[in-house]
């Protein structure tokens, strides 16, 4: 589904990613963990082309993200419309939810399906309602985001991403901004998606949750992937010294 090769990202003279190779297969749930500043979120942002990679390649279902053949053996930047089409295939959920405050819950969800996918409003509303039902917030469809709790906003944000029927979901520390008592309701929604077979790549600080839902743990530090293993193995027998040190601190 996703294939990342030798991805690097540099901001000025700061090297954030120093060569990332990563494969995520269909129906895979992969959790990226690591200390803050290790580049975890930047990987996700590159996968949605919110940041353009400095070098390296990203393939989504075999198609190169952001670039295409120029017909002369080289590569050129895709046109905006084409890039938007690719972006629409990959859902992204943010730490701060980022719902639009001037639109109701339902309007937040149907906006992109109507504008980007050209869905008829009736169909978009029906899909949005079904998704709200799924995340347990149908009763809030006409509420404005500012009247919802953090956990509720995040569930709406997940529904908004799902409304585009993406091939996969990128989740960027989606519980980090939440009150402890609302974290569980969001994690339950993600877990249900994992069970349904949604392909997901998540950056998280919730070690227990990563162990519970992820098929694979990716440990990052200083812009590199240092270790990749199934959760049972990673949490009980981390191989890399820095992974050990990290787990000692957070567990």
């Amino acid at each position: 589904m996703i294939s990342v090769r030798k991805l690097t990202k540099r901001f000025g003279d700061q090297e954030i990613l120093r060569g990332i190779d990563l494969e995520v297969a269909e129906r895979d749930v992969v959790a990226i963990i690591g200390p803050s500043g290790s580049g975890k979120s930047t990987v996700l942002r590159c996968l949605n082309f919110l940041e353009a990679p400095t070098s390296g390649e990203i393939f989504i279902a075999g198609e190169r993200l952001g670039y295409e053949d120029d017909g002369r053996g080289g590569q050129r930047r895709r046109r905006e419309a084409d890039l938007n089409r690719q972006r629409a295939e990959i859902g992204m959920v943010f730490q701060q939810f980022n719902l639009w405050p001037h639109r109701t819950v339902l309007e937040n969800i149907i906006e992109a399906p109507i504008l980007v996918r050209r869905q008829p409003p009736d169909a978009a509303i029906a899909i949005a309602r079904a998704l709200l039902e799924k995340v347990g917030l149908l009763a809030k469809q006409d509420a404005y985001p500012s009247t919802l709790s953090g956990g509720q906003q995040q569930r709406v944000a997940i529904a908004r991403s799902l409304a585009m029927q993406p091939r996969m979901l990128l989740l960027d520390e989606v519980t980090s901004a939440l009150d402890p008592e609302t974290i569980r309701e969001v994690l339950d929604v993600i877990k249900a998606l994992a069970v349904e077979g949604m392909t997901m790549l998540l950056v998280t600080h919730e070690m227990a949750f990563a162990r519970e839902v992820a098929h694979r743990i990716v440990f990052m530090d200083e812009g590199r992937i240092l270790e990749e293993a199934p959760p049972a193995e990673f949490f009980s027998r981390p191989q890399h010294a820095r992974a050990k040190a990290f787990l000692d601190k957070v567990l």
Partner: protein
Amino acid sequence: MNGFDTNVILEWAPLLFEGLLVTIAFTLGSLVLGLLIGLLVAVAGMSRHFLLRLAARAYVDAIRGTPLLLQLFILYYGLPAAGIKLTAPVAGILGLGINAGAYLAEIFRAGIEAVPRPHVQAARSLGMSSRQTLVRIQLPQAIALVLPPMANEMISLVKSTSLISTISIGELLRSGQIAVSITFAPLEIYLVVAALYLALNLLLSSLVRHLEMRTGSRGRSEANRTLQDVGV
């Protein structure tokens, strides 16, 4: 002619009222033009293309850096020398609109930039184009945000219309001057003229306040905090 003569006011009310209508017409005309120019220049000022950004910057600097009265003189008295002859009303609307546009552009730009970046990124990550994001996500929030400074600009525009009396347009102030030159009752007439400007502006600001209430408090607190950061 001693004391305060109310008869003079009644006698000249029709002319002053006519002047008021002209002032309203020029305010509305130049406001529409100014909003249009302001929006275009604001968007151009944030463009990817360097030349567009430069043009927008130059426009705002040139207009803000010179007096409106001088701009009106150039349009009405200066351009004929270059073979472009504008009628007084056209020069008046153009001058006021072009001038207001520069100030409104800065207000819009501040408003658009005050919409939190993450709202834009959420839209882009869903596959919305930059134009769709601007129209559907940024502008609605920006306009709600900049209503108060926009009200300032509109009020200032109402008062600026008095300057077009100098290119022979019979707006409110000019009607007053005509009445004074005949009646020699400057206090009565000018106080009435002042009251009329004041009434017009009070109406305008209550209208904007009503709009502010309607766009409401939803989600504005967050954005307003950001707006204070950019100094609006």
